[in-house]
């Protein structure tokens, strides 16, 4: 996993609650057996005026001029500002793959769906939960000033606005550690191999039917 570096990120506002994973990456793109290349289809149905197909050259497709990520001022954004319950719906990890591939390193919202939350951190994306009114304020500031950037410092768990306001955020210690170090958590878990084996043996002895194969 890519290490998380401190961001001086351009912010793009997506003003809509309950953004689901079908919206982040529509199902026709889940047919890929790769992990990369989903960025061009991020928010496909909002971004383009036609229906996208997997493997298609997206540079020729008609863009929706009203969609925020198509506006010139938000090109190169690495921080996505969103509304409540972002990432609800399916467990598709293609959603964070698409966000990361597009260039987003941080998503800020009042709340996130559980499975998406897990998936994002495993792909080097920092999700920051802030109170609804703080998010509302950021939306107003972003929309009011072009080139609005946030300084996102994971080490200090702190966001600094261009106006110098400091917003602290919470993140659990393990996720923070993995993100900062770019760690693969399978490797970390396998350090506990002996504990897993010991548990498995005890578990099998207590409930052998859980290990049974079809008769």
């Amino acid at each position, binding site marked *: 996993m890519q290490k998380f570096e401190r961001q001086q990120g351009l912010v793009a506002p997506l003003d*809509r*609650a*309950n953004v*689901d994973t*079908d*919206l982040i990456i*529509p*199902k026709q793109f*889940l*047919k*890929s*057996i*790769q*992990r990369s290349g989903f960025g061009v289809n991020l928010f496909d*149905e909002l971004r383009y005026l036609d*229906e996208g197909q*997997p*493997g298609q050259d997206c540079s020729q497709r008609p863009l929706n001029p009203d969609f925020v990520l198509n506006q010139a001022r938000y090109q190169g954004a690495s921080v996505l500002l969103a*509304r*409540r*319950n972002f990432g*609800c*719906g*399916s*467990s*598709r*990890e293609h959603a*964070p793959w698409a966000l990361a591939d597009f260039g987003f390193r941080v998503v800020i919202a009042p*709340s996130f*769906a*559980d*499975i998406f939350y*897990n*998936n994002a951190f*495993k*792909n080097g994306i920092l999700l920051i939960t802030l109170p609804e009114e703080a998010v509302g304020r950021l939306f107003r500031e972003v929309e009011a000033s072009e080139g609005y950037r946030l300084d996102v410092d994971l080490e200090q768990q702190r966001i600094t606005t261009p106006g110098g306001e400091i917003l602290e955020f919470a993140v*659990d*210690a*393990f996720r923070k*550690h993995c993100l900062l170090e770019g760690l*693969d*958590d*399978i490797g970390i*878990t*396998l350090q*506990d191999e002996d*504990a*897993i084996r010991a*548990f*498995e043996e005890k*578990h099998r002895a207590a*409930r*052998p*039917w*859980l*290990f*049974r*194969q*079809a*008769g």
Partner: protein
Amino acid sequence: MAGQTLYDKLWSQHLVKERDDGTALIYIDRHLLHEVTSPQAFEGLRLAGRKPWRLDANLATPDHNVPTTVVERARGNAGIQDPVSLIQVQTLDDNCEAFGIEEFKINDARQGIVHVVGPEQGATLPGMTVVCGDSHTATHGAFAALAHGIGTSEVEHVLATQCLLAQKMKNMLVRVEGELGLGVTAKDIVLAVIGEIGTAGGTGYAIEFAGSAIRGLSMEGRMTVCNMAIEAGARVGLIAVDDTTIDYLKDRPYAPSAAQREAAVADWRGLVSDEDAAFDKVVELDAAAIEPQVTWGTSPEMVTGVSGEVPDPEAEADATVKSGYQRALEYMGLAPRQKITDIKLDKVFIGSCTNSRIEDLREAAKVAKGKKVADSVQLAMVVPGSGLVKRQAEAEGLDKIFVEAGFEWREPGCSMCLAMNADKLGAGEHCASTSNRNFEGRQGYGGRTHLVSPAMAAAAAIAGHFVDVRTLESNRAAQEA
């Protein structure tokens, strides 16, 4: 000390290790796989030179991409027209073969939607932890199994370590007491719960469904309820073990052998919340007050009773809710205060891991029997959840009832639930669907989905618009009797 909830018990029975950083290592008993979320996980294993930890914990079947017409299916994988879908199904076959994982392939009678297949085989048992790279894994919680969806990185993690890194959730109790009205089903209960608490209401919680109305449901109905816990924001839905659970599991292929059964059943009896268990949140619903439900918008929480109407966004005080409603009505092509029963349907889909089990098909068939699908409905399809459900339905003659009424009778798979195969809605088409998500574009680009129960879907197919199943002759007669 307060007693334990069912979730607390399942958690502690699988706790390998608690770590200082607040995460825990949880042992996984059953891992279900399908073609969409597994290829990158197998690839990751290969790249790292790792092997699956315990092969017999895994069970795979292709479901999302498989075609559902008889002609295509007769040709096995070769019948998959879309080359990209074909690669995905073929990749699952190849990976299962290479790593030695049991798979029910496309034309195996046991193939089907992974959440129908697991319980049907007895591969989902009370007291298990069950995971799958699919959010509707919550379904398996109907068996008092701790079951939830995971992402592809976690699929790889489970394959490699037989464990997951997890954090304990909070406990929520949803109690539904009383008797359901005639024609009101498990689907209506869960839609009503989502309407009550919202699609983020369960975020961070494991929801246990309890109360007499839940106890009164069959296992099929309980699976429908737990299936949609995720639409209420909860990764986990749970129902305690009782006789219904134990009876359902008898003689299923993966269920305990005769020699193990007594000990297993004794163990399962303990899989209930203690009477003095403390829940972080409790929600109560009166079963008798639940009407047949219909969603009118683009989120499962945008739902109302069949006798209701589409809301008026202008009446909403919260700006985010108001703009959400406006956007939904525009997408759905509906007017404020339009009556639900005035919504006309272009297509009808009976299927998906929410409602494609034998009981669902029986309920739909009861409504369709001797009737005809309305001329204005272009396509009404019934897609059984597995090859075994299909076989059972045919043995009961349900396929004939559907076909005579003008429904298409298909081969098992996810089908138009998410339209990854050829079954999809056209732009602007309204569909009465027994699936679980009405998101924009979910059932096809520009498609308009209304989530309902199987009986409501069948009744809508026949009338061409939504009707209250409680007013149908069959139900009226039963009520008067």
